[in-house]
């Protein structure tokens, strides 16, 4: 039985979906926001290091659960393995209202101008689908600003000569440096680097009706105990609900977008909280289920005109899966570096995002968030003992005397790094699951070697008595920073959506999440995803002339 029609169904109440739902409901459209997870509270998992969104040895704090969800991941040589959401390899972000924005580290980066023009800047890279975005930084800039002001960012780019132009400053002052930050600031200046405070989606002062951060030990991976972290769950989604036009349906799992024989979306079928299948008719559909799940949803949405899935006529849906090749260095110190002032990451440099000799890109570098005791038990110089008395001595000596500097290397997109749907494995609801394969581009590792050497230099200058670098290998991309699977572009043969996030093939289906990224920047991606949510929402609002708006 079909439900009462709405103007728009938004699938996924995460970073992009939360923003779009607010933009559309504010413009007067009736919106059903489907989210497979539920609302979260701090009390659910408190400060439990073993069930967080960063350490998941006993499960994911904020979903998805291991009982009902699966993915299949390439095990090389044509073999596949099924993985659970709490296992490495699944490439999880989260599943709850707000998704990763509930438990993230909340770094709030704008991409740089060159990040939107990677192909023009670096030319073609062999083995890569490196391309320019169809939109420029200047076009997205007002939407970054909107995200910063409506969701809330604390920061100050004055000391950063590499900052892209920012018309309006951040709404909140930056967080002060912690002890690590102060040590690194002095060292950076000696080296001629240009350090500045990390912009954060956290309240440095009361903002948006919520209190200031109390700088606790637990931030990344946890919900905020005082509600000072700014996500979509405590900003734009409540605003959407307050319009009276947005119905947030939690524990609802979208199965497919129904596409009629004329090639237009009719609505979305989903399983409700009682596992009953429902059909929600709609004038338009926005897929914002994250780069992996949006690709899966579109590929599962088969129709007469598009038998291989919605938007997939050119076989680009699910392609170019990216994340970040995190590279950096660790340093051990004689003096105490730990001051227990959270969240921990306070200082960054953008000296090595671009202009690195012989390299097509780079990464921002920042000091790491506080390492909790279990996580720290896995941080050791290469070859050091990992157990026995030596383990304890290391913990006692260096838990409070170490600094990590890391950065998200901008990945060079690879066509065969991809999300497909598995032909056999299904989830609890019988929906074919995502299957992930392909590997990073070897150039990512070269860039990682370079940026990690700079991180190491920085730590040495700060007085480290021992340092080592960490550079990831090839291997499947995606994960917390997953992006790129429904690339936006001007040419329908080499992209999935147009520059407004609208499928080339089906004009009343939009995408508004990390899937749209042509390239993923040398930065954590969430602010760009939020800005794209505003960008796509703005286009829909401006062109909304009633139910038939996007059906021609």
């Amino acid at each position, binding site marked *: 039985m079909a439900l009462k029609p709405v103007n728009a169904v938004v699938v996924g109440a995460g970073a992009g979906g939360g923003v779009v739902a607010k933009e559309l409901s504010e413009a007067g459209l009736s919106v059903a926001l489907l989210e497979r997870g539920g609302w979260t509270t701090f009390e659910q998992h408190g400060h439990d290091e073993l069930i967080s969104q960063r350490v998941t040895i006993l499960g994911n704090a904020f979903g998805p659960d291991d009982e009902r969800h699966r993915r299949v991941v390439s095990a090389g040589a044509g073999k596949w393995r099924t993985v659970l959401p709490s296992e490495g390899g699944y490439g999880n972000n989260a599943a709850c209202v707000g998704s990763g924005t509930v438990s993230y580290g909340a770094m709030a980066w704008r991409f740089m101008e060159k990040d939107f023009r990677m192909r023009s800047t670096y030319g073609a890279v062999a083995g890569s689908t490196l391309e320019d975005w169809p939109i420029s930084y200047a076009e997205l800039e007002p939407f970054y600003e909107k995200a910063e002001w409506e969701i809330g960012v604390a920061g100050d780019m004055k000391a950063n000569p590499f900052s892209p132009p920012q018309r309006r400053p951040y709404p909140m002052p930056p967080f002060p440096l912690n002890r690590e930050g102060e040590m690194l600031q002095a060292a950076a200046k000696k080296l001629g680097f240009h350090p500045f405070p990390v912009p954060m989606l956290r309240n440095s002062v009361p903002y948006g009706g919520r209190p200031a951060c*109390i700088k606790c030990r637990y931030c990344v991976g946890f919900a905020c105990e005082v509600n000072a972290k700014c996500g979509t769950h405590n900003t734009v989604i409540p605003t959407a609900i307050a319009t009276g036009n947005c119905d947030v349906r939690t524990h609802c799992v979208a199965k497919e977008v129904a596409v009629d024989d004329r090639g237009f979306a009719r609505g979305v079928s989903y399983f409700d909280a009682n596992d009953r299948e429902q059909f929600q008719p709609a004038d338009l559909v926005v897929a914002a289920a994250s780069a992996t799940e949006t690709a899966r949803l579109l590929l599962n949405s088969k129709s007469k005109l598009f038998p291989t899935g919605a938007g997939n006529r050119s076989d680009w849906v699910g392609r170019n899966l990216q994340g970040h090749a995190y590279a950096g260095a660790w340093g051990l110190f004689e003096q105490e570096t730990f001051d227990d002032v959270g969240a921990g990451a306070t200082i960054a440099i953008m000296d090595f995002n671009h202009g690195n000799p012989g390299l097509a890109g780079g990464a921002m570098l920042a000091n790491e968030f506080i390492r909790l005791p279990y996580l720290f038990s896995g941080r050791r110089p290469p070859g050091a003992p990992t157990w026995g008395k030596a383990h304890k001595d290391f913990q006692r000596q260096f838990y409070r005397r170490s600094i990590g500097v890391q950065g998200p290397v901008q990945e060079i997109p690879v066509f065969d790094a991809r999300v497909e749907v598995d032909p056999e494995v299904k989830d609890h609801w019988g929906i074919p699951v995502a299957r992930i394969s392909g590997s990073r581009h070897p150039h990512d590792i070269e860039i990682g070697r370079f940026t990690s050497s700079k991180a190491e230099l920085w730590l040495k200058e700060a007085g480290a008595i021992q340092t080592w670098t960490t550079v990831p290998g090839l291997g499947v991309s995606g994960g917390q920073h997953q992006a790129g699977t429904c690339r936006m572009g001007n040419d329908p043969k080499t992209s999935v959506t147009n520059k407004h996030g609208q499928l080339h093939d089906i004009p009343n289906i939009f995408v508004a999440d990390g899937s749209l990224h042509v390239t993923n920047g040398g930065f954590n991606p969430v602010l760009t995803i939020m800005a794209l949510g505003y960008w796509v929402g703005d286009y829909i609002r401006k062109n909304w002339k009633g139910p038939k708006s996007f059906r021609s």
Partner: protein
Amino acid sequence: MKYNRRRFVKTVAAGVGGAFLLPARGADASVWRFFTNADARLVDAITEQIIPADQDPGARDAGVINFIDKQLAGRLRRHRQAYRDGLIGVDETSRAMFGREFVVLAPEQQTEVLKALESGKAKGETWRKQSSAAFFRLIRDHTMAGFYGGPQHGGNRGYASYKMLGLDYPQIIGQNRYRRRS
């Protein structure tokens, strides 16, 4: 009298000089959720090598065995077979190297056995099924989780590891302890 699990666990924790006491009813009436009593003695000995007591408590004092047992009956259920096989393998290696089972070896010999496991070159039929290195990584990781994770999961009794690292525990919630810095 049925031996009460909590009392038993306490007894284990208090185990003087590492002596591992058996419940009154003998070896087959396990007081554990997943392990047999013999398994528990073995796991206790292994984890105590992984995090030995010194001036600070080790795995035994912190109740790591209780953590692992509780989790193998819960969220880490999927690793049960790995433990069943792995524990057999540890004794196979132990016998191959020193002619006796692991729990009765001297601490230095136990260390040698675990090093062999870690290297992936341990002797024993069972290691054909799963590599000894993989099992060692698993139990080492679970030992760390039990020692450093919150006490609600069965280990880290009395926040032993937090005390060792000089971290306050449990953290005061909702209070601005850091106002001095801004």
